[in-house]
């Protein structure tokens, strides 16, 4: 018996016993909760099949590969059951009824994700295999979403009702998260290099950036509105350059300020971490300062830099949600709209893509960091 698999099995079985879906005749009415076995026409065989996979997974001789395949299948069956339960409960003509995933669904999703993670961790995949698995997982998610099987689940109904706004907010979210990262790299890299060359300035610069980081995000976003509004109104030409106290701009500046510390401090530690022998060798070859920077220090400091990009990207994708509160757009718009109307499906519509985006960006950047280390022989 494998202890992590036993934990997975317990979580999954509890999930099977808890309600899979919540069924509401309309958005406001109190709902009924149904377990997987009760919600589906062929509920019992499906539930027994999932239970069998969970219990058999406890066997020690299951190979990591088998665990990954079983987990992927389990997730697919679970999600398809959710979609089928929704279709069967609401029927095609009923526009008012809502079926949302309930605690059992989330718990089983957690269980199978853990099974997947357990398999991946045991397999210790090569970089190539990791990329392939990531691509496979993304393809599976895309196939499930595009199959139309989920169309009657409440979140997807919310999505169908506001497809244009969703695309718009998604674009805003990406522009904010990636745009602020780009700006932070443009400003932070030179700043990091500058304080590497001038150690006297390291303390003060990092202290200021540290204090910036401690300002609560909500306040920083809020303060940017009047400050930028004032700049746009008083500095001639600022307005024409896009400076504005409303819309996306304040959020972009706030995110940029938060991103500076990780970029600057990682640039510094990346440069400072280059072995002295490499620097001596470069000096011995008669390299100029600029040559040394671009041919030795920056390439060798690359893993630390990519690690900073990972931190900033994940952090900014999450923080961009708050832009929704100050009218800056992004998925946060749905989250806060949903919280205001106590419409949890709407909250999910904002929260799930944010989590997915952060998760995928974190994994991709993590793999890139590993790759840059491997090609440099620093693994």
């Amino acid at each position: 018996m494998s202890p992590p698999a036993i934990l997975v099995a317990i979580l999954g079985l509890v999930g099977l016993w808890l309600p899979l879906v919540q069924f509401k005749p309309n958005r406001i009415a109190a709902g009924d909760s149904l377990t997987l076995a009760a919600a589906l026409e062929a509920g019992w065989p499906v539930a027994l099949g999932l239970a069998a996979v969970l219990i058999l997974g406890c066997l020690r001789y299951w190979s990591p590969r088998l665990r990954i395949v079983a987990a992927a299948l389990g997730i697919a069956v679970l999600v398809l059951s959710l979609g089928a339960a929704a279709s069967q409960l609401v029927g095609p003509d009923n526009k008012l009824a809502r079926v949302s995933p309930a605690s059992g669904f989330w718990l089983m999703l957690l269980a199978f994700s853990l099974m997947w993670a357990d398999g991946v961790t045991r397999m210790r995949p090569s970089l190539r295999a990791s990329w392939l698995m990531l691509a496979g997982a993304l393809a599976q998610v895309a196939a499930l979403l595009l199959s139309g099987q989920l169309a009657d689940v409440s979140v997807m109904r919310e999505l169908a009702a506001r497809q244009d706004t969703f695309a718009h907010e998604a674009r805003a979210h990406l522009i904010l998260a990636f745009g602020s990262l780009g700006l932070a790299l443009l400003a932070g890299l030179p700043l990091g290099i500058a304080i590497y060359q001038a150690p006297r300035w390291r303390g003060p610069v990092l202290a200021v950036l540290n204090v910036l980081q401690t300002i609560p995000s909500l306040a920083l976003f809020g303060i940017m509105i009047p400050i930028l509004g004032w700049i746009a109104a008083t500095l001639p030409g600022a307005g024409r350059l896009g400076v504005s106290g409303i819309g996306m701009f304040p959020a972009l500046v706030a995110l940029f300020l938060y991103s500076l510390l990780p970029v600057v401090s990682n640039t510094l530690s990346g440069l400072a971490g280059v072995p002295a022998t490499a620097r001596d060798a470069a000096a011995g070859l008669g390299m100029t300062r600029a040559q040394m920077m671009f041919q030795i220090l920056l390439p060798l400091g690359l893993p630390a830099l990519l690690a900073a990009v990972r931190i900033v990207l994940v952090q900014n994708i999450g923080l961009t949600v708050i832009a929704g509160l100050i009218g800056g757009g992004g998925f946060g718009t749905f989250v806060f709209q949903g919280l205001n109307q106590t419409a949890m499906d709407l909250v999910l519509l904002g929260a799930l893509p944010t989590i997915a985006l952060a998760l995928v960006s974190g994994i991709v950047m993590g793999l890139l960091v590993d790759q840059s280390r491997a090609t440099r022989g620093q693994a």
Partner: protein
Amino acid sequence: MIGRLLLALAAAFALAFLLSPTSFAVLFQPLTRNGAPAIYTQASLLRLTLFHLGIVALAVLISTAVALALALFVTRPVGREFLPLARTITTIGQTFPPVAVLALAVPVMGFGTGPTLVALILYGLLPVFENALAALTGQPAKVAEAARGMGLTPAQRLWQVDLPLALPLLLAGMRLTAVISLGTATIGSTVAAKTLGEVIIAGLLSSNTAYVVQGGMIVGIIAVLIHAGFQHLERRAARATGQTD
């Protein structure tokens, strides 16, 4: 030295402001428009601050206790098999945005302080766990050997060697958790938690910059103080066990 002086000044200013906010109205008046009030008076700022600190302290304590227990479990022979999985979960879990975790806690917990506390605890687990794990697994081999050579029982080794050596890194994890929680707790006010976020949100809703600044300022000063306080403790703990770094 200058740093300490600045910290002391900031602390004194924050304390004076909390005890008698209205005396500082002159300072915030320029930030208001159309004669809006300069100081938030719907609720006592001191009370909100205490609530805010209470939630954060409770969250940090609970997540530290749970994370440390889990870290100890996966580094003992009984739980060894969970170690690699636990590492993966921590790395992935930390990419979950705190705001999203908070929003998702609402359907389960309803509105109020509850979901905020749960989100803070869940999110706070990860930095402490990661650091505790690094500290418990990163010991030099000679330390373990010396402990065995002295004939320490596993329990003695845990209390007299492992935990004291892990303390600096553990405190660093608590520092991360505390600072993140302070900021995230302000967002908790969007789901009706009683924190200083209430002041900031009131400012956002009524376009009163003075509210936004005073709420943010108090949280910011407290965050800087907590950051410095933990760093001080970390250095002391490191010195006490002869770890120079």
